[in-house]
C-alpha cells in the first residue's frame, strides 16, 4: 500500500497508512523509517503516535489498496502459473521451483526481492498447506515450516497463540485455561477441544499440530492489469498529470514483467471534478515494455484532446500480450531486432501519430489514388521471391537503365483551374502551378463504384506543362471541377 508514495522524500519520512481516519484505526502500512522508530503494523494510530511523535498518518485510498492486492497477485504469478489470492495474501505452489533455486530459503528470499521491486513489503512462509502458511506469516519475515506434520508441530510449539489469529471467544477460553503457546494447545486432547470449542477450536488445534486440510484453489489471472490512484486536489495541467501517470505506468509494467508480458494497448480513465470520467484508448503498433513510449503516447493524446475539467483521479487498464520470439534466418541480411523495431515504431507513433506509421496497402478500388496504411509488421519478413531485375542495355552509345515510372500524389487532390482550348486542356492555374500545357494526352474516362453508393465518373489527362512537370489531372464529370492528382516523377 505504500506503493502510492511516489515522492522520494515520502519514502524516507516516518509515514503510516491507516484504513480510516481517527486514533483507533489500525495501521496498514509503514515506511522503513517509521518501522525503525518503533511503530508496528497492527498498532492503532494513537499507540503509534505515542511511540513516534512525528509520525504522519495518511489514509489508504481504495485504489491503492486494490492496486497493491493486484501487484501481490502478479508477484505470485512471477513464480508459479497458478495462484490463489485473498485479502492481503497470495498463495502459490513452490514444489516445481527446485530446479531454479537451490533451497526453499532461496525461494523465499527471491520472493521478497521481487516484492521489493514491486514496492511491496511482504512476509514469506513456505509450508505444506495454506493454513500453516498463514500461521507462519504471523510468526516472522521468512519462515520455512517442515513438510511433515510432526516437524511442523515441533517448529510451531514455542510460538505464542497470537500467530493462530484466534477469534475473541477462543482467545478468552485459552487465557482462562492458561494456554499461552501453540505447543500447549497442540498437547490438549483433540476430541475434548472439539467438544468444548466447536469446529473453530478443532481447526486451531489441527493447526497447532501441524495439520491442515484446506485445499489450494487456484484462480485464473486477470486478463488485464489495472493501476489507479486518487488525489486530494484538482490537477489542471499536463505536467503533474504526467508525473502521476509515470508512477502508474512503472508499477504496471513491473507487474507485466513478472508475467513476462508486454503492453499491447492501454485505456486511461480520468476521474473529473465535480463528477464524470474521461476515457482515452491508446493503441500501440506493437507490444512494448518501455514506460517512456507509453507516456509519450498518452501525453500526445491528452495534448490533442485535453479533459474538459480538472482531474482528481486516474486509472490505467493495460492489455497484456506476449512478446513473441522470432527465429532469424541465416540467409537473410541482418535487419532490426524485432523488439528494437517495435520500440522505434512506438517512438515514431508518439512523434507523428500512430495513423501515420505503417505499411502502405493497395485497396481494391477503381479509384487509382486510394490506399490505406496498415499497422507495421514487426517480425522479419519471409524470404522474398527473386524478381527479374530491369535489364541494362546500351542505346545510342549511352548506358541506359530502365525502371518503372513513378508518380507523386497530392493528398488530397488539389483544386486547379484548367483553360480548355480547341484540342483539350491548354493551361493550368492553381496553387501548385500556373503554366501553359504543351502536350495534353487524354481523355481517359473512368467511372464506377456506383454500386457502393458513392460512385464517381472522371476524365483523366496527362499533361506536359511549360514548367517542365508532367501532371496528371482529372475532371469530375458530375461537378465539372478539375483536380491535380499529382505528377510523374
Amino acid at each position, binding site marked *: 500500500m505504500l506503493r502510492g508514495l511516489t515522492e522520494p522524500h515520502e519514502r524516507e519520512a516516518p509515514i503510516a497508512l491507516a484504513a480510516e481516519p481517527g486514533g483507533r484505526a489500525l495501521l496498514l502500512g509503514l515506511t522503513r523509517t517509521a518501522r525503525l522508530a518503533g511503530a508496528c503494523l497492527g498498532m492503532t494510530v494513537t499507540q503509534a503516535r505515542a511511540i513516534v511523535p512525528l509520525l504522519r498518518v495518511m489514509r489508504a485510498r481504495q485504489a491503492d489498496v486494490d492496486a497493491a492486492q493486484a501487484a501481490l497477485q502478479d508477484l505470485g504469478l512471477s513464480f508459479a502459473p497458478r495462484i490463489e489470492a485473498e485479502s492481503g495474501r497470495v498463495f502459490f505452489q513452490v514444489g516445481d521451483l527446485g530446479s531454479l533455486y537451490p533451497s526453499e530459503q532461496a525461494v523465499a528470499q527471491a520472493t521478497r526481492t521481487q516484492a521489493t521491486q514491486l514496492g511491496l513489503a511482504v512476509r514469506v512462509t513456505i509450508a505444506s498447506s495454506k493454513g500453516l502458511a498463514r500461521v507462519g506469516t504471523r510468526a516472522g519475515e521468512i519462515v520455512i515450516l517442515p513438510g511433515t506434520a510432526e516437524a511442523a508441530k515441533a517448529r510451531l510449539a514455542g510460538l505464542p497463540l497470537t500467530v493462530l489469529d484466534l477469534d475473541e471467544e477462543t482467545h478468552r477460553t485459552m487465557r482462562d485455561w492458561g494456554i499461552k503457546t501453540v505447543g500447549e494447545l497442540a498437547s490438549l486432547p483433540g476430541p475434548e477441544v472439539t467438544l468444548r470449542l466447536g469446529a473453530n477450536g478443532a481447526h486451531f488445534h489441527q493447526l497447532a499440530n501441524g495439520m491442515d486440510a484446506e485445499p489450494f484453489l487456484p484462480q485464473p489471472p486477470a486478463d488485464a492489469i489495472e493501476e489507479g490512484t486518487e488525489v486530494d486536489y484538482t490537477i489542471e495541467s499536463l505536467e503533474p498529470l504526467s508525473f502521476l501517470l509515470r508512477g502508474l505506468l512503472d508499477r504496471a509494467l513491473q507487474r507485466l514483467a513478472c508475467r513476462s508480458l508486454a503492453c499491447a494497448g492501454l485505456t486511461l480513465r480520468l476521474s473529473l471534478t465535480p463528477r464524470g470520467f474521461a476515457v482515452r484508448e491508446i493503441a500501440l503498433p506493437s507490444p512494448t515494455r518501455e514506460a517512456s513510449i507509453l507516456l509519450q503516447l498518452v501525453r500526445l493524446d491528452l495534448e490533442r484532446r485535453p479533459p474538459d475539467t480538472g482531474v482528481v483521479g486516474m486509472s490505467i487498464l493495460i492489455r497484456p500480450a506476449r512478446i513473441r520470439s522470432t527465429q532469424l534466418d541465416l540467409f537473410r541480411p541482418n535487419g532490426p531486432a524485432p523488439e528494437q523495431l517495435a520500440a522505434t515504431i512506438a517512438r515514431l507513433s508518439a512523434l*507523428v501519430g500512430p495513423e501515420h506509421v505503417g505499411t502502405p496497402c493497395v485497396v481494391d478500388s477503381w479509384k487509382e489514388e486510394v490506399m490505406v496504411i496498415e499497422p507495421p509488421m514487426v517480425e522479419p519478413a519471409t524470404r522474398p521471391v527473386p524478381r527479374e531485375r530491369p535489364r541494362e542495355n546500351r542505346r545510342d552509345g549511352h548506358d541506359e537503365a530502365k*525502371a518503372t515510372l513513378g508518380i507523386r500524389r497530392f493528398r488530397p487532390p488539389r483544386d486547379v483551374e484548367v483553360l480548355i482550348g480547341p484540342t483539350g486542356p491548354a493551361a493550368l492555374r492553381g496553387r501548385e502551378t500556373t503554366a501553359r500545357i504543351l*502536350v495534353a494526352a487524354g481523355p481517359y474516362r473512368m467511372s464506377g463504384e456506383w454500386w457502393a453508393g458513392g460512385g464517381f465518373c472522371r476524365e483523366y489527362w496527362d499533361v506536359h506543362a511549360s514548367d517542365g512537370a508532367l501532371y496528371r489531372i482529372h475532371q469530375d464529370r458530375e461537378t465539372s471541377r478539375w483536380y491535380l492528382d499529382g505528377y510523374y516523377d
Partner: protein
Amino acid sequence: MLGGGWPRGALSEVYGPRSSGRTSVLYASLGAVLQKGAAAALVDAESALDARRAEQAGIPLRQLLWVCASQSQTLKSTELLVSAGGFALVALDLGDLLPHLPPTTWIRLRQVAQRQGTAVLLAAGFPLAGSFSATSVHLQQKNVDFGRQACARFRPRLGIDDHTLARAHPPLVTALASSVSLDRGRRSAEQAAHCSLFFQEPLRASASGEWT
C-alpha cells in the same frame, strides 16, 4: 554509374525538378533493397507515395515501413529510424519542400548513419546536404513519350474500327527519359558521364499493339 549503388553508412542525395525521375529512382532503390530481404524505410514529407506504382516498381509493400511526417518531423523521424539500426536503406523524400536546416543537421545524420552502417538517401527538389553527402546525383528531364495504348486483339472480336479505338484509348504518358549527372560520388565525373535513365509506364503497348 554509382560504382556499386548507394554507399552504406553515408548520406546520399538525388535531386532534380519535378518530373525529372527522382521518385522513380527512390522507388527503384527501395525495391532493390527490399527484394534482397533487407529492411528499408521511407520517410515521406508530403505523403506522396502511390502504393500501386510502388508495387509495380518492385517494392514488396508489406515489408516497407512508411512514415508520413510533417516538415518539422521528417529529420527527427529519419534519425529515429537510422538510430534503431538494422535498416539497409532509410529514404527521406522531401519532395518540393525546402526546409531551412542548419548544417549540423546533416552532420548529425551522417554520423548516425556511419555508426549504424545504414544508407540514407535524400530525395528533394534541390541539393540540400551539400558536401555532407557522399554521393550527389542530379536528374534532369530529357524526353517524354506519349504513346497510344491500343488493344489489337479485341479489335476483330468487337468490330471496332481504328478511329473508334483511338477515341476509346487515347494516348497517355508511356515513358520518361532523364539525364543523370554525378555531382559527387565514388566514380569520377568522366566515368559517370553519358548516363541516362529511362522510366516506363508499367503497362505499355509493344510494337505489335498487344498489351504487355
